[in-house]
């Protein structure tokens, strides 16, 4: 994986370097070009972010220096003259050389640190004076700097900084003792200490007495020790000095309890129990939420904190605490006051009381399990709040159960296995009859099977119901999207949603989002005209876009209809020919509808049309493949000047497929039951011939007959003259066909497994399933066969 990531980085870095370099050249000609400077800055910034993922500090350091220079240019603090452009281009060239080294050797060359330091130093030398100090929260985990660290600073400067720190500003002392031999490894300690952000003061001293400078001073043995004071955070300092961290010690300037009000000092140090429960990550999350809500009571703002602390406690399996959190939340909402929530979070961060005892007696006022009656009774708004518990009840008894999706999926899989087991019973019945000669036993097993069959079907139905979601889940996202997109395109669109409560399986509904977005986006981009164009064409200026859902037998149908300019088949033909998808002759031979269907062919959409949405060159063919993967169909109809209608037809559920098992040429196959219209037996006399095809008449319709053994191989069994030919009448893509097979078998519910391995390339099958007796059954895909 590491190498894949590195490969990706090398590729990305080269692109970004190219972008940055050409942007810099633009800037040299047009120094005021804001777009160009932003582009260059972003490229370098992104490169810095990505480089941090690898153990390449010299690279990061050099890019960082370049970014800082560009940041000053961007804010107007520095003008970009040719000298700076030269420095930046030199730096970028060096980064390019580093990338080449990484690509070739997987690591940077030994002198990288020295080279990077030179370039970074040259860039940093261009940077202006001190940056503005940033107010940060004191880091409580660091010890206080010893007095000798501060001895080297001028007294007045030192006292002023100490005063700032006591007033609550988090200032850090950085002690940097470079390695004695560092000059030989290309390190420049002076450049390194310069890299510390938000520097306020620096001193340098000798680690050991210099001795006699004439006799035994070695200029290449580093005997320096630097002390820096900074307003940057610990993270920032550590990041800036990543490559020298071994030689760096960090301290706070003053002890946290020496910080005066208004910053309230935490009166209790974090207890070991809390870190045991929450861990470092959890404590950070909780601490941060205290800051997130610090702006004052905001019901909306509180919701994400409410959810994520609940998630945190669920993640830690602290159900009792989670209940108390819910109550604290409810009380905070009822009283429109953050106090209960803040108290809970503060207590949580410090470490909750042991949860074993009941009722819990927390050291800090976590709310008791029962909500005091006054909490709701005194607050008029409480009655309208769903989360507020009625007095005297520990928790509101909710009628909705929130179930983890994984548990539903598990249940689905178990039922799937039950279905397969159940399907073994008819085989058992046949064995009872044929091998053991017990018809009675066979019949009893069949009766048992019928009952079990009904129960599992009902169970499946019930689980399906749980998984059913209304399409509103997806539709409801569109009003705002359509408005935003239309506004950006200067178009006026009226969105009409119908049938939003039509329900389908969760998997289907969730997967609908992307295809729908593509179609709607396409309609807004290409279908719907600008208001002026519409008026000129005699249409109202405001276009109408309809999203409609309804259920059609076992399918959910989603229709996206606009009254835009429609699809011009002639244009589609032209584009398809230009792109080499079809020849001119082929294009001319297509009907208008066939031409329109071309837009769903891979490669039809141009990158320019789709890059704005996804930047990944996703075309309409993805809509088709997504829908087909779900077992659905897409159709487009369009009338030039009148509009376009796209229809997606998807199965209501996708977990279980009902098939009919048939015998063809001595082998068993499955046929999805939704194709089967009826089973019939034809007397050979009613089969007619039209040209070379066999047909028969069914309810005044001429139905072509297909001999499946001719298609799939195998030897047809002799026709039983008394019973006639077994024919399965199916509807495939709107046409009726009669499949001549050897015999019908039972219908069954199966979990279809997609074709894999060697079989994946074989067309004509939609999947396989395991029969009760362990055999693999191939399920035919009639759409592919005919």
């Amino acid at each position, binding site marked *: 994986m590491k190498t894949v990531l590195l490969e990706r980085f090398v590729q990305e870095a080269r692109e970004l370097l190219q972008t940055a370099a050409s942007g810099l050249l633009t800037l040299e000609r047009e120094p005021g070009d804001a777009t160009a400077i932003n582009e260059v800055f972003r490229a370098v910034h992104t490169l810095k972010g990505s480089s941090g993922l690898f153990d390449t500090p010299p690279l990061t350091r050099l890019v960082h220096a370049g970014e800082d220079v560009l940041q000053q240019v961007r804010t107007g603090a520095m003008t970009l003259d040719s000298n700076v452009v030269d420095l930046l281009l030199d730096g970028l060239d060096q980064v390019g050389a580093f990338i080449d080294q990484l690509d070739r050797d997987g690591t940077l060359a030994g002198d990288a640190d020295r080279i990077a330091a030179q370039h970074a130093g040259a860039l940093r030398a261009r940077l202006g004076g001190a940056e503005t100090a940033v107010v940060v929260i004191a880091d409580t985990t660091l010890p206080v700097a010893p007095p000798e660290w501060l001895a080297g600073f001028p007294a007045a400067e030192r006292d002023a900084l100490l005063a700032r720190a006591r007033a609550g500003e988090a200032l850090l002392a950085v002690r940097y003792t470079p390695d004695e031999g560092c000059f030989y490894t290309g390190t420049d300690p002076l450049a390194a200490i310069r890299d510390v952000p938000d520097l306020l003061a620096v001193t340098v001293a000798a680690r050991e007495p210099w001795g006699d400078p004439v006799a035994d001073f070695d200029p290449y043995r580093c005997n320096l020790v630097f002390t820096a004071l900074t307003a940057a955070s610990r993270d920032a300092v550590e990041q800036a000095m990543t490559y020298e961290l071994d030689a760096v010690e960090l301290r706070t300037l003053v002890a946290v309890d020496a910080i005066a009000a208004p910053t309230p000092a935490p009166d209790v140090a974090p207890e070991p129990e809390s870190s045991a429960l929450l861990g470092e990550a959890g404590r950070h999350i909780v601490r941060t939420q205290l800051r997130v809500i610090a702006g004052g009571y905001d019901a909306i703002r509180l919701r994400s904190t*409410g959810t*994520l602390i609940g998630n945190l406690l*669920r*993640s830690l399996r602290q159900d009792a605490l989670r209940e108390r959190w819910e109550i604290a939340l409810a009380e905070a909402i009822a009283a429109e006051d953050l106090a209960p929530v803040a108290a809970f979070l503060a207590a949580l961060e410090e470490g909750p009381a042991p949860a074993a005892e009941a009722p819990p007696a927390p050291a800090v006022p976590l709310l008791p399990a029962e909500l005091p009656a006054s909490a709701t009774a005194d607050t008029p708004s409480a009655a309208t709040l769903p989360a507020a518990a009625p007095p005297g009840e520990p928790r509101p008894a909710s009628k909705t159960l929130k179930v983890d999706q994984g548990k539903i999926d598990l249940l689905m899989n178990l039922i799937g296995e039950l279905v397969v087991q159940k399907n073994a019973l008819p085989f058992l019945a046949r064995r009872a009859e044929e091998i053991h000669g017990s018809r009675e036993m066979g019949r009893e097993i069949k009766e048992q099977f019928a009952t079990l069959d009904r129960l599992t079907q009902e169970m499946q139905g019930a689980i399906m119901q749980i998984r059913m979601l209304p399409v509103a889940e*997806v539709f409801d996202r569109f009003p705002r999207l359509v408005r935003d997109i239309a506004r950006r395109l200067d178009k006026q669109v009226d969105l009409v949603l119908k049938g939003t409560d039509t329900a389908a399986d969760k998997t289907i509904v969730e997967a609908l989002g992307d295809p729908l977005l593509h179609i709607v986006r396409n309609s807004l981009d290409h279908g719907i005209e600008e208001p002026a164009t519409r008026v000129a064409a005699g249409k109202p200026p405001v276009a109408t876009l309809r999203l409609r859902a309804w259920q059609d037998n076992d399918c959910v149908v989603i229709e996206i209809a606009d009254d835009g300019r429609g699809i011009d088949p002639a244009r589609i033909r032209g584009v398809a020919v230009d792109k080499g998808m079809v020849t001119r002759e082929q294009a001319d031979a297509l009907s208008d509808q066939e031409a329109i269907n071309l837009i769903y062919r891979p490669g039809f959409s141009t990158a320019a049309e789709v890059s704005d*949405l996804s930047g990944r060159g996703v075309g309409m063919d993805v809509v088709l493949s997504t829908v087909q993967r779900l077992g659905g169909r897409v159709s487009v109809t369009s009338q030039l000047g009148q509009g376009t209608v796209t229809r997606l037809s998807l199965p209501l559920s996708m977990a279980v497929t009902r098939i009919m098992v048939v015998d063809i040429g001595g082998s068993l196959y499955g046929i999805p039951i939704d194709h089967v219209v009826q089973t019939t037996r034809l007397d050979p006399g009613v089969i007619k011939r039209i040209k070379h095809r066999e047909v028969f008449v069914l309810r005044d319709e001429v139905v072509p007959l297909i001999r499946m053994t001719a298609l799939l191989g195998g030897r047809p069994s002799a026709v039983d003259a008394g019973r006639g030919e077994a024919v399965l009448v199916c509807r495939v893509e709107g046409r009726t066909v009669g499949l001549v097979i050897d015999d019908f078998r039972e219908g069954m519910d199966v979990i279809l497994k997609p074709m894999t391995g060697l079989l994946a390339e074989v067309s004509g099958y939609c999947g396989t399933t395991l029969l009760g007796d362990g055999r693999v059954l191939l399920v035919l895909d009639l759409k592919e066969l005919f």
Partner: protein
Amino acid sequence: MTKPHVNGKRVLVVDDGMTTRLYYRDVLETAGFGVEEAVNGVEGLERALMGDFDLLIVDVNMPKMDGYEMIAQVRVDPALHEIPIITISTEAGERDADRAYAAGANLYMVKPADPALLTETAQMLTGVEMAR
């Protein structure tokens, strides 16, 4: 490499750096999360509004629409009031963190986020039960 059992939680990663996106995808998928990507704030917003995610991870500095703006827009949608949002930035400044919180983020992390820390944080924010 075997992936552990999927945990059913979906994360949207919004970052203009493709290496960074691959890195998050690798770390999070290894932990069983479903991961989707967006390459800028505009696309991030569209996908956040469209998709059913349990967590958003948003870079601050992005083209077209930056992370602050995207998060603020996300929070306008009532359906997305609850979703936990992490901002990840190369800048360690507390000012940037406060700006992110003001926009509606719940957490601020500094790039490059340590894989173990990122995994644990994502699990905690989405309520994935952790091994004791």
